[in-house]
């Protein structure tokens, strides 16, 4: 599922620098190509340079962020020219600490989590140079918000069964493959890609040179957070229904301002609408907005989904961070609510939350030394269960107050804050934690099969043509 609500950071390790950026036209020319290995001292020097040229106190937020990107200090493990310096990922902390100390603005990573956590690593790995240059800078600065068009009403856990169709329409006149309007919407990256036909550094080994023509998309996506504010969506759609389901899918970048894109709020059990349904009717996507080769969409999507799961895991947070802290505070402040039964259960959950916190910290330490273990997939499962149990206990602890709800008004929050509202909201919202981003049941299968090596269930759907599968 595409529901996405955890603070994320791009999680793909740097695949190494790509060729130096073109000298003209690109917005990302500012970064000096690294003269040698970038260490912490060098990064501090570059941060000081940035701060000297753009005083955070007097520079507009957007301008500062663009300058930070151009200086290669956005995500230092990305290649030079694309917001990074090809430095070790772990050194980003040095930059962040220096910038925080100087009162510099951040790019509000929670608001643009899908772009940072899922779209960016996929574009870095599979995008053409033109796609990378056009898209990554406004993605990182937050000038352009991204959403993920993956899940469908008929394709949740079984995402590869998706039915949204993409039909290729060759350009009538190759030299006029794009209207002026297309070029404007695409910000130019379509046309240049078509002219140069450059493959990305890490994808599409066998890619044919010029890209022309377009794809016409029809279908429905669901559980799309940020669709109503997004400029772009990462989209997977079926390009060949005659092939088995995993093989007939292609991966696109969908312009959310296309007139065929209709976004409707999807109201949840909490009363609010964090997510959307997205109806795609005759949406036209230029072939230059494809990521990866036609039919390779499932493989490309794995990069996206892997990063989604990694993004949910590791890191260091203070003790009593999150829901357990809220419950513990209520316990301390309200002696009148205490019962022996709740005391035992609260302590037990506190222990489990603390053990999960250590596990997250341990995972973060593994990532920092470049040895991510399979523990990442454990974290989401653990937190889903903890959130549900702690919030359930909190409602019960509150007694009479637990009978009330803060507000059923239909709202459209831009950010989801699991602990920002009252206990009843937390209880209801936490129910989604074991569904979004892969249900707990599917994640248990993945752990059992990929980590423990247990045999899969027998399947009948893997090798049949998609069009012949029962739906």
């Amino acid at each position: 599922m595409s529901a996405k609500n955890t603070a994320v950071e791009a999680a793909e390790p740097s695949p190494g620098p790509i060729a130096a950026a073109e000298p003209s036209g690109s917005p990302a020319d500012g970064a000096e190509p690294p003269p040698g290995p970038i260490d912490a001292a060098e990064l501090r020097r570059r941060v000081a340079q940035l701060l000297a040229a753009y005083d955070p106190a007097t520079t507009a937020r957007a301008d500062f962020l663009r300058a930070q990107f151009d200086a290669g200090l956005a995500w230092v493990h990305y290649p030079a020219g694309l917001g990074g310096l090809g430095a070790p990922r772990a050194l980003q902390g040095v930059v962040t600490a220096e910038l925080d100390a100087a009162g510099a603005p951040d790019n509000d990573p929670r608001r643009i989590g899908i772009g940072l956590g899922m779209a960016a690593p996929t574009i870095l790995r599979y995008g053409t140079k033109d796609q990378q240059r056009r898209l990554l800078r406004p993605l990182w600065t937050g000038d352009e918000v991204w959403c993920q068009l993956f899940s469908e009403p008929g394709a949740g856990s079984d995402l590869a069964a998706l039915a949204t169709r993409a039909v290729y329409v060759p350009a009538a006149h190759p030299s006029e493959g794009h209207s002026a309007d297309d070029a404007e919407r695409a910000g130019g990256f379509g046309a240049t890609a078509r002219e140069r036909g450059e493959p990305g550094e890490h994808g599409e080994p066998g890619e044919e040179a010029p890209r022309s023509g377009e794809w016409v998309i029809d279908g429905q996506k669901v559980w799309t957070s940020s669709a109503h504010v997004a400029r772009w969506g990462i989209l997977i759609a079926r390009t060949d229904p005659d092939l088995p389901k995993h093989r007939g899918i292609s991966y696109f970048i969908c312009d959310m301002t296309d007139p065929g894109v209709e976004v409707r709020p999807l109201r949840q059990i909490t009363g609010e609408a964090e997510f959307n349904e997205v109806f795609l009717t005759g949406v036209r996507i230029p072939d230059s907005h494809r990521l990866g080769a036609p039919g390779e969409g499932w493989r490309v999507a794995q990069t996206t989904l892997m990063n989604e799961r990694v993004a949910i895991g590791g890191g260091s947070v203070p003790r009593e961070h999150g829901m357990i802290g809220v419950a513990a505070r209520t316990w301390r402040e309200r002696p009148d609510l205490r019962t022996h039964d709740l005391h035992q259960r609260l302590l037990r959950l506190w222990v489990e939350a603390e053990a999960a916190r250590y596990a997250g910290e341990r995972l973060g330490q593994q990532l920092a030394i470049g040895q991510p273990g399979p523990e990442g997939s454990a974290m989401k499962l653990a937190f889903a269960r903890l959130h549900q149990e702690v919030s359930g206990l909190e409602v019960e602890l509150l007694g009479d107050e637990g009978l009330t709800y803060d507000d059923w008004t239909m709202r459209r929050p831009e950010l989801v804050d699991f602990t920002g509202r009252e206990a009843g909201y937390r209880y209801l919202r936490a129910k989604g934690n074991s569904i979004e981003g892969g249900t707990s049941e599917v994640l248990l299968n993945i752990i059992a099969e990929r980590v423990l090596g247990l045999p899969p269930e027998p399947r009948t759907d893997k090798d049949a043509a998609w069009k012949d599968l029962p739906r």
Partner: protein
Amino acid sequence: MTHQAPTQPPQEGAGSAHLLYSEQEEDLRAAVRALLADRCPPETVLAHAEGGRAYDTALWQALGAEMGTAGLLVPEQLGGAGGSAREAAVVLEELGRAVSPVPYLTSAVIATQALLSCVGAMADANTDSGEQPRAAAETAADAEVAVELLAALASGERVGVLAVPLSSAPGSASAVTVRADAHAALTGQIAGVADALAADVLLVPADGPDGVGLYAVETSAPKAARLRLDPSTPLDLTRTLARISLDAMSARRVAGPGGAEAAIARALLTGAGLLASEQLGLAEWCLTQTVRYTKERHQFGRPVGSFQALKHRMAALWLDLVSARAAARAAADALATGDRDAPVAVAVAQAHTARVAVRAAQECVQLHGGIGMTWEHPAHLYLKRAKSDEIALGTPGRHQEVLARLIDLPAPTG
């Protein structure tokens, strides 16, 4: 509780723990694992359990003395290997994985830590100008005995056991049931002492003329008739239990009032914290064997491990192990660095890991089906160790009670 190990500087509170295994720790693990694979396979453990011996002396000689793991907690200048609780924890993971019948936890961890604290108390007293000369001299004499015993334990040549019930929890005062007279002769009984039958030296907490002291009793002393050890039949076939009866038994004091209580508290804290690593290793064996078995075992024409009803249970167990490993590492690291957060980290590790180990052993029996219920299959050795370990050094509930005070989540009043 917060008494620092003598050789490490104290560090600041929660959040800075190093939770991975160092290369050196992995080397140590490989060496211990290889030894145990050779000398302590499940059939040997079972044969040992049926043989009625106190512990596997040959294995202990190889592991504790020759490999030098008995002295990991002890600084080199005191005759040890100069390691830390982190390394001892790795040894315990492997011992748990093999349910080895050796007195590592009792001698190399708990008794050793008690003696280390006694020696540390002397160091503290030397710098404390306010102490009376007579008391200082007594403390020095105590410490001299402690230093001598420490070297013997660290070398692996002698086995020492802190004479408290195995169920004693750190942080909750346990009753002292032995009295010491002015000549350090001990009288009283202590029930449920693990590895007492293996001990060359018992460290006995006793009420002396000045208050609670810690006294060393030689089990092979000429007056041994004044010392009786009555074995119980233990649930855990790999760790003996006995009642100690002392009747004017001669002893040497290793710590006096104040120092003794601190030493006992620190020893129990260290023991409880590192027991989590034994439980972790035990649980890992249970999951590994269960996965292996359910891949091989066919019913209904396919491996039983392919059924989601079973594989979800194993995946859930793996999930528990991820957090148990992190919690056990956090406790070991906090003990190794003398972090003042150690009591919290230990209580969390025990409350969590003890339950995970029991669940792992229970799942191991269940998912093995009939074979898991037999005497022949080693699963029962793990179940019995796991269930005993759940009680050892404080039940999860007891650790949660300690935690409630430490983290200010008080019980309802009235």
